[in-house]
């Protein structure tokens, strides 16, 4: 139930038709769990070794992206290319994907309200990552949040 609070928007407007990848551009793409660094006591000891020292799991300031790609598409591509673990639940009928865990850091690992969320250009979009189409120069960040810690 609490999943809903964090990330997913289950009921979504019918999506626009899939555009073909026409032109490529560059975006900034980051996967971070630095919020956990000061709160290691919140997370199981076994998982401590999974958290990088600087809290950054992946960073690329000039990632090639394609027209019409959603935040989810980029995440899937990046994690596969870089052999980063990622688990998600896909509900194609609503074109909705929910990210359960990245790099074996899962939802609920740091409390009941913890999990992965994303923000683009310092704004938390109020809808699912598979709905958000990236644009040139966007700064896309995946962030591990816990409790009511929203920026």
């Amino acid at each position, binding site marked *: 139930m609490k999943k809903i609070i964090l990330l997913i928007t289950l009921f979504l407007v019918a999506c626009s038709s899939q555009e073909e990848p026409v032109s490529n551009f560059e975006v900034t793409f980051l996967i971070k769990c630095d919020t956990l660094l000061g709160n290691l006591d919140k997370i199981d000891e076994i998982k401590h070794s999974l958290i990088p020292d600087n809290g950054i799991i992946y960073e690329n300031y000039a990632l090639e992206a394609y027209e019409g790609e959603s935040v989810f598409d980029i995440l899937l591509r990046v994690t596969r290319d870089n052999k980063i*673990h990622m688990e*998600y639940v*896909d509900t194609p009928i609503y074109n909705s994907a929910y990210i359960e865990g990245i790099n074996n850091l899962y939802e609920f690992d740091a409390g009941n309200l913890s999990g992965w969320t994303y923000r683009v250009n310092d704004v938390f979009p109020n809808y699912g990552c598979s709905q958000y189409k990236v644009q040139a120069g966007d700064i896309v960040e995946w962030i591990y949040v816990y409790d009511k810690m929203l920026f």
Partner: protein
Amino acid sequence: MIRCYFSDYHPIVLFIYFISVISFAIFLMHPVCLLISISAAISYLALLRIKKYMLAIFLIISIINPLFNHAGVTILFYLPTGNPFTLESLLYGIATSFMIITVIAWFCCYNKVVTSDKLLYLFGKLLPQLSLIISMVLRLIPLYKIRFNKIMHANPSDNAFKTAALVVSIMVTWSMETAIDTADSMKARGYGLPNRTTFSNYKLTTRDIVVSIGLVVMSGYLICSNKLAVTYIPIFNYTQSLPDFIIYTILCYTPIILSIMEELKWKYLISKI
């Protein structure tokens, strides 16, 4: 093939043994412990003809876990759903299925060794109704099997459908009749009257006390030392300690060790005549 001398021990010893061995089989998921326990259970049961359903359970559980559990640091490949198939989750599936097979094998041993009269003796005073019901229920299926075979021997009819109908009818009437007989017989023998005693021929001797103290000490050591930790997900990580493995091996192999010792003693005494 050595005779099992362990089943001659006092029921309480058998009960302590099976309680500790089965609970350790469930809680110690360490790969070495699983191997020790399953080898002991199988050799105790002389169950070397491993049953087919056990292999099926093994395969199904080992494969099902990684299909639904995607956690783990070593990604082997991607499933059609898009999620990763990880080595850790496969290992965890294998360990779980090993554990389930081990527990089933231990319960097979338990059924052979702790017979219903021993169970009644152990819990007859504490939970008289429950232990009676348990022993009656456990007897039910083998009893019906025997009756079914008896009816089939009489060869009621050539027609298969008619046979089935007759067998069901005979089974039902026979079972109802014997149920009434059982109730009458129990009443005639004073079932439920206060201050009744039950007959039992079990004596707690020194060797029973020695063995049960040994079992309790070994189990207590394993619980207190708590050195055999293992995590499968997300990172396969385990600790090991040789003394713990040795003690766990002795604990699991107790009946076999005792039987071999008894056999050697017997041989030795014969040789002296």
